[in-house]
């Protein structure tokens, strides 16, 4: 085999028919461009969801109050208030690997500051919450364990709520009334953006859970518990420990359902990214169809080319080309067409994705990996669809081919 010479022959053959070569390449350009752009859109959506998942915090385990059954009536998750502050203490004491823990109560409440009012999510948490969510303050300081013990009326405010209540002024030291109970604002949170569910996470007011329970909501049970595991590896083992402990504490006999629910960040992430993963696959699959159509275009042109150049093949064979040389020549022509289309298609796809990002405001993400896969795939299309015509050419009988009109 003389690969370099064969490549040269293939290149000369393609150059002899520039218009045809360009049109054949166009099919692959469209195919590869579509794949790159579509996968870019899918990956962009996935990356956005992943970023939202990451905004939950690091190595987070959530324990929700479960449903109870009273007189045949099933209540929803989180509504029953089966978790208590004692449960939180017990988990902190007995489960190994707890880095931070925060009991949580929440209520939607109309909050008032001066002559402004705003309905917002009021969360009761412990100071650990800001570590668990990895949510630093932009201004002021968070409330402390002492504030929790004394059920002090202090609050940390989210960016959206702050803007609604105080416009451009600094809220630090100002009073906000929650159900007529005055709270002093000690800190302002950095903005976090939308949650996985699409709600504004900055539309929030966070107070010590003790204050929320005693002074605002008048409740003794928790909606949920936020736990941060000391390491990612512990995420696998901790839910079981927590479940066992809580079943024991709640005296749930074997065979009975839990009255709580344990979810890790991974569980939530998997559920949320599943949708975007399906979308990416679907978009990629649809775009691949056009790539395959482009490949069929190559096969079509190569078959025409073989027929049209039968005498050329005869001449080449007469002057000493092996069947293998002919096979390689036509295969290389097909691969050159498809990979050239691949390279241009990648550029077109990147541009298309950028345009979509700019015009439709969709997040797109083009990875080096998807570019490499698209290029290799386009070359593979050339090999796959070029092989049959090439083999047909290589099997011609030199005498018949020479006298072909």
């Amino acid at each position, binding site marked *: 085999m*003389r690969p370099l*010479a064969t490549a*040269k*022959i293939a290149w*000369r053959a393609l150059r*002899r*028919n520039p218009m045809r070569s360009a049109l054949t390449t166009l099919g692959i350009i469209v195919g590869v461009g579509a794949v790159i752009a579509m996968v870019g859109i899918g990956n962009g959506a996935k990356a956005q969801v992943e970023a939202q998942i990451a905004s939950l915090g690091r190595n987070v385990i959530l324990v929700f109050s479960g449903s109870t059954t009273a007189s045949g009536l099933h209540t929803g998750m989180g509504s029953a208030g089966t978790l208590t502050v004692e449960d939180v203490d017990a988990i902190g004491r007995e489960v190994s690997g707890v880095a931070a823990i925060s009991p949580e109560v929440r209520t939607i409440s109309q909050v008032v500051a001066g002559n402004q009012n705003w309905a917002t999510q009021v969360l009761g948490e412990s100071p650990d919450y800001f570590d668990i969510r990895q949510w630093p303050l932009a201004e002021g300081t968070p409330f402390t364990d002492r504030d929790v013990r004394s059920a002090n009326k202090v609050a940390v405010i989210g960016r959206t709520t702050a803007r609604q209540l105080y416009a451009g002024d600094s809220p630090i030291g100002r009073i906000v009334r929650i159900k007529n109970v005055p709270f002093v604002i000690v800190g302002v949170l950095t903005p976090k953006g939308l949650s996985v569910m699409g709600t504004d996470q900055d539309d929030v007011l966070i107070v010590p859970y003790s204050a929320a329970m005693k002074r605002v909501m008048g409740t003794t049970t928790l909606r949920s518990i936020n736990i941060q595991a000391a390491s990612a590896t512990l995420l696998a083992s901790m839910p079981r420990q927590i479940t066992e402990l809580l079943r024991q504490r709640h005296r749930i006999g074997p065979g009975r359902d839990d009255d709580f629910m344990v979810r890790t960040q991974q569980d939530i992430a998997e559920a949320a990214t599943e949708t975007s993963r399906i979308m990416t696959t679907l978009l990629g699959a649809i775009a691949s169809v056009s790539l395959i159509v482009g490949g069929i275009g190559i096969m079509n042109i190569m078959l025409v080319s073989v027929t049209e150049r039968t*005498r*050329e093949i*005869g*001449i*080449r*064979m*007469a*002057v*000493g*080309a*092996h*069947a*293998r*040389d002919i096979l390689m020549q036509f295969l290389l022509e097909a691969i050159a067409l498809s990979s050239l289309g691949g390279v241009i298609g990648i550029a077109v796809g990147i541009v298309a994705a950028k345009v979509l990002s700019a015009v439709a405001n969709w997040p797109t993400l083009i990875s080096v990996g998807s570019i490499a896969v698209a290029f290799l795939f386009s070359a593979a299309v050339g090999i796959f669809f070029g092989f049959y015509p090439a083999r047909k050419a290589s099997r011609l009988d*030199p*005498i018949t081919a*020479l006298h072909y009109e």
Partner: protein
Amino acid sequence: MGALITLDQVSKTYRTGDIAVHAVREVSLDVGAGEFVAIMGASGSGKSTLMNILGCLDRPTGGRYVLDGVEVSELDRDQLADLRNRKLGFVFQGFHLLSRTSALENVELPMLYARGLTATQQHERALRALDLVGLADRADHHPNQLSGGQQQRVAIARALVNEPVLLLADEPTGNLDSRTSVEIMGVFQRLNAGSASRSNGQGITILMVTHEPDIARYATRTIIMRDGRIVTDVPVAERLNAADELRRLGPLQPVGP
């Protein structure tokens, strides 16, 4: 002088269904190095089949064929291709040049399938071959920019570029007018006589199929076939000299060296 070609009882039989067609029947033939043989015969006489066998494009169904010491009958497809590449040059009636490809690239074609030549060497050899047929100044012309005679000379340059031992010409003047035909015979006669055509200075052996008795008279030996057999095999009695003929025809157009 040893025989360059030895055919011993060579036959070629085609089978279509139950009917066997004997295209070539037990032909034996010796051609020495330096000969210029014209093969003649009516269509269907088996001369094309014989040429295909001699050109290693086809294998005989019976008998032995030895070319320049190589037993051809036993070679496989790729070995035949290598043999054609190294030892044979082909000239066809229809020129068979690659269209939209320069004369130089056409001449380079056989070297692309040969081993051990750099691109520069290929280039030089192709130019030398074109110079030999008087077309060095047309190297970058495409076939459609050349006259029939010029195209045939490019084809001859292509046939010569790998320095073959044997030149096979199948009706080389069939598509040319009489004056251009004589010019081509002039090129053949010069190549056959030797001189610059090959690195060892020896003349090239030519086998030429033609149906024109006038053209056959430029050869040194005439073979006439009928029904797959050689019926006549004689030296050319009154051999024509292409250079003299051209002088007689007058200086219509400049003739290549």
